[in-house]
């Protein structure tokens, strides 16, 4: 008779890790590592900062693991920490002097508008880049308020309610920011590909919607 081991769910792994089980912690973190790194990579925009943010986030998770009470899912809790670590990394990067030869995937070292936290000049270079670099540049041109919810939806696969809990904004705000973010990304990439008359660029009626 073959006995198949059933993988433990996150809650069980968390409990085991809280009890000092290293193997459980290893399993738990390896299960979520790619998505956590993915969130950090898309928010920070480059491999080096993503690596820093991911490691800081994982260490913060270990330090806080004993206090994690399971009210939220482990994933939601982890992505919240990853989001904060990534935004902290972005703030540190803005204070950092430019270093020649730093490993950025794109030359996104122009001065940032502190309010928008986007790189307006990034869009100008998009048409010269491949798909992956195009999306990096398009995301860099997107303000953090739109970039973060789009990333949490499309990379971490969180639903609107989970994203709203992480960002501490209403669900309606999450919906509208994701829609606006996608609209801007689609428009930027479409223009870069030479498509000046596509569906995502229909004239935008001005609505004063408060959600």
């Amino acid at each position, binding site marked *: 008779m073959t006995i198949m081991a059933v993988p433990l769910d996150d809650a069980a792994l968390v409990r085991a890790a809280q009890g000092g089980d290293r193997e459980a912690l290893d399993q738990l*973190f390896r299960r979520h590592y790619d998505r956590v790194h993915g969130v950090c990579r898309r928010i920070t925009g480059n491999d080096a900062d993503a690596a820093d943010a991911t490691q800081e986030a994982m260490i913060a998770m270990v330090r806080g693991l004993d206090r994690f009470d399971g009210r939220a899912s482990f994933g939601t809790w982890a992505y919240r920490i990853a989001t904060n670590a990534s935004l902290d990394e972005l703030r540190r990067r803005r204070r950092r002097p430019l270093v020649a030869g730093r490993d950025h995937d794109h030359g996104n070292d122009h001065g940032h508008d502190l309010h928008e936290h986007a790189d307006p000049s990034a869009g100008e270079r998009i048409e010269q880049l491949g798909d*992956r670099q195009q999306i990096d540049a398009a995301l860099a041109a997107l303000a953090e308020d739109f970039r973060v919810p789009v990333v949490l939806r499309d990379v971490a696969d969180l639903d609107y309610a989970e994203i709203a809990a992480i960002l501490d904004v209403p669900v309606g705000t999450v919906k509208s920011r994701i829609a606006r973010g996608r609209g801007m990304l689609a428009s930027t990439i479409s223009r870069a590909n030479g498509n000046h008359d596509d569906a995502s660029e229909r004239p935008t009626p001005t609505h004063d919607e408060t959600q």
Partner: protein
Amino acid sequence: MTERDLNDELNPQHALASAYLDGAASPAERAHVEAAPELQAIVAAFAAVRALVADVPTAAADTREAAFAAVFTEFDAPALVPAAASAAVIPLNAKRRWARPVLSVAAAILLVGAIGVAAKGGLSGDDSNSSSASLDSSAKVASPDVATESQMTSGTVAAMAPSTIGSIGGSAQAALIIDTPEQLQALAATTLADTVLPTADLPETTAAASENTASADTLPAPFDLAPTERYARPALGCLTLRQVFLADIQYQGVFAIAARDTVTGMTSAITDDCTVLATVGS
């Protein structure tokens, strides 16, 4: 950017298409989208964007393993806070109401000042602006549970255990009531008396924080204390390696901790779920 600004110019077609793509559209909205070629085209464009965003380069194997090594260094470190440290808050005698917060803050000043004097040599290298340096320092500090003088003078930016400072008030600490960024600034100022920090850039604020205009020269009236409630400081798990715990606070009615970034000098109010309620400059 205000909430109103963020919601300006929301294209209703984009909102429909985005909700449809996420499976969040109502039955009527789904029917509307499926009957409109124009909307279907937007859905297709958004789906292409989603695919590009989701196609994230994976981390290199050595990057991943370095992160796991750091994780297990932290996991294997001795426990920082005894279980009793998260005990219930001691009720205060009304007669000593003003004396206790002053004593708590004074005790915080003494310990942070003593550590700050010892840390002057450790911070002089000022290589902490580089994130790779911060990773190196965090990997070097194998036992960050006690901020000993030898660790401070080793030239690394020590990952100070937040509970080392936070426990100075004893195992049970009342949360200081902080209602404004100015009060948070004043709390930060009282713990900066003898600490030398690198020059910080203009302060940035996060979340709901307003611009800080308070002068650090004048202390506000003694802090009020939050009502007696159990507070277990889960927010300690939210701190980055550069942040040190200052005090338990109740910021605008929300239990949080005050923590200072040892590199930038910024002080933040951070909740149990890692939300930054406010950040003020040093």
